[in-house]
């Protein structure tokens, strides 16, 4: 948390500095930096340009920094509310009485004893009615359908957890891990398809993909810990290897059984691929991942920033590494539904890269990553739906547009990231 107000800015005459000269001076640097910060805030948020440029005193710089932080907090709170609403929708979808529930004894007993289904069913209807109003005002024919809401909900949740986990991955220089785990998940989908063809239990697909992906994650971790000197070689092996296994399994399976699910949908992502159980999985893993990051935020930051010092401070670095990589695997499987295997890593990396361009602290990087991630999702959906194009590609293209914008902004303000 930045707390500029804690400091006495006695140098009032530094407010007009447009650039940080990265000098080695001691006392003056702080007030220079504050002035620069004010300038960045004005460009970054696009809201407080006037205060920053017309009142170049250090106290106004403090105010703008404050405002910048407040804007971010409001943004994150909005994303949080949106995500909570979407989790609420998924919960209602789950709790309402499914057609054919009476066929399952326990489920029917649950409904009749708790009486939860009429309420959930009613609220669920309200969502769809609200959707119908959206459609009416927007001239669309989308939001009145439950599948569309499931889709949107899954997307919104991806926009929260992918950049959240990605912030640590990117700064640990593990960006390609996401891509690797997506390919492992693809092998998992292949295994799942075979499993479904044999057992007929369709809901199992993503859970099997999840299991295989987590096993793959532990495998990558094991390989990188043992072959340190080769850097990203184990990752490349794992990436191609699991994809190879996946394609072999699918071709082999198609030889003697009928597989009803189009594999292309998992490769490129599709709006029709999100099932009720898929969105439920996404909701559960979102709650889990957010809770884990909330508890281990500090430890993950420490090992990301200075692994050796974290080791000396007796943090269990290897356990936290494993935790991070398993969380990545979990997020990747959830996000794969909308983004597709090939593009899923983009959501882990691009919003974080954009945020790192203009963020001034780690906490800010985290906030901005989530904001940019959510903007990419919503923008991508809008684009995909309006142009009838695939969601995955649209989301990534919007994310890259935000990234380029962030570069432009950080260039214009003299760059907060100095290149050494």
């Amino acid at each position, binding site marked *: 948390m930045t707390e500029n107000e*804690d400091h006495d800015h006695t140098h009032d005459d530094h407010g007009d500095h447009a650039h940080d000269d990265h000098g080695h001076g*001691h006392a003056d640097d702080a007030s220079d930096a504050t002035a620069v910060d004010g300038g960045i805030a004005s460009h970054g948020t696009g809201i407080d340009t006037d205060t920053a440029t017309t009142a170049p005193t250090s106290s106004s710089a403090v105010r703008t920094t404050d405002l910048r932080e407040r804007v971010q907090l409001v943004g994150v709170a909005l994303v949080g509310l949106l995500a909570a609403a979407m989790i609420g929708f998924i919960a209602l979808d789950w709790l309402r009485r499914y057609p054919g529930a009476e066929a399952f004894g326990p489920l029917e007993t649950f409904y009749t004893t708790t009486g939860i289904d009429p309420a959930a069913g009613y609220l669920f209807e309200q969502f769809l009615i609200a959707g119908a109003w959206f459609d009416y005002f927007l001239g669309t024919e989308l939001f009145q359908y439950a599948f569309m809401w499931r889709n949107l909900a899954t997307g919104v949740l991806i926009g929260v957890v992918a950049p959240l986990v990605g912030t640590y991955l990117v700064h640990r220089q593990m960006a390609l891990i996401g891509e690797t785990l997506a390919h492992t998940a693809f092998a998992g989908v292949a295994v799942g398809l075979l499993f479904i063809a044999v057992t007929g239990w369709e809901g199992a697909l993503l859970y099997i993909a999840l299991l295989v992906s987590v096993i793959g994650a532990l495998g990558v971790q094991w390989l990188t810990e043992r072959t340190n000197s080769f850097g990203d070689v184990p990752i490349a092996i794992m990436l191609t290897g699991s994809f190879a296994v996946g394609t072999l399994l699918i071709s082999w399976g198609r030889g003697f059984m009928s597989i009803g699910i189009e594999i292309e949908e998992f490769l490129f992502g599709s709006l029709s691929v999100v099932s009720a159980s898929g969105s439920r999985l996404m909701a559960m893993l979102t709650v889990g991942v957010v809770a884990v990051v909330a508890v281990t935020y500090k430890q993950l930051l420490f090992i990301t*920033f200075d692994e050796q010092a974290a080791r000396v401070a007796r943090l269990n670095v290897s356990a936290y590494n494993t935790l991070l990589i398993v969380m990545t695997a979990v997020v990747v499987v959830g996000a794969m539904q909308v983004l597709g295997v090939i593009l899923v890593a983009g959501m882990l990396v691009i919003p974080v890269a954009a945020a790192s361009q203009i963020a001034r602290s780690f906490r800010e990087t985290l906030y901005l990553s989530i904001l940019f991630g959510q903007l990419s999702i919503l923008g991508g959906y809008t684009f995909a739906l309006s142009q009838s194009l695939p969601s995955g590609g649209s989301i990534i293209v919007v994310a890259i547009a935000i990234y380029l914008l962030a570069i432009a902004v950080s260039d214009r303000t003299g760059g907060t990231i100095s290149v050494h």
Partner: protein
Amino acid sequence: MKSVVDVHDVSFAYGDSPALEDVSLTVEKGDFLGLVGPNGSGKTTLLHVMLGLLEPDTGTVELFGQPVDSFDEGERIGYVSQKATDRGGTMPVTVRECVLMGRFAHVGHGRIGDEDRLITEDALETVGIADLADQQMNQLSGGQRQRAYIARALASEADLLALDEPTVGVDAESRDEFYRLLDSLNRSGITIILIEHDIGVVTDRAGRIACINTELYHHGDTESFVESNALSEAYGKTGEVVHHHH
């Protein structure tokens, strides 16, 4: 009184090439130990073994009287590594965030409280970079950055400060200031282990010297080190002495 670090008969090899052979030395509370030796002499290896980052092939290491592999009071050690951090150059982390990390070992999975923030501000004040608190680490000069890491160690209320060539690439003036800071920290009771390639600096500052080149050539107070020929013996094997006069 328990010693801070107790290294006993430690040997360590990278594959077939030995880095340390039968090294034994003890660091007492309040020591300012300079660890010197030619390049590739095993200084950093010895420091890593002391801190438990590397496990010795043979021999034992104790930290604050506990075997190093079961030592769990990580907050008692402040560590400033050679290239202070891998990510400090690219990751947007403020000086205050970095120093606050010193509190992480104390709070565990709990929340950072007001007291932690106060201690952080105090640490920033002590090393003289309170005015840089909201700067990013990657905007600092080399000397300022090392101060931030010292502040992190202070924030964790470390009893032992281990530094691996902290002033590489730092200009002479900032370096002198930096060593004055170490002096005053040492006087306030913090034990310091310092790896330094500049023999002059070490003999000026450190109360005790350990001179190694795979084996321990000297361990004792600075005067006896200057008078002995441990230096030329140790350096005679591989390299030349870096010695600036002050």
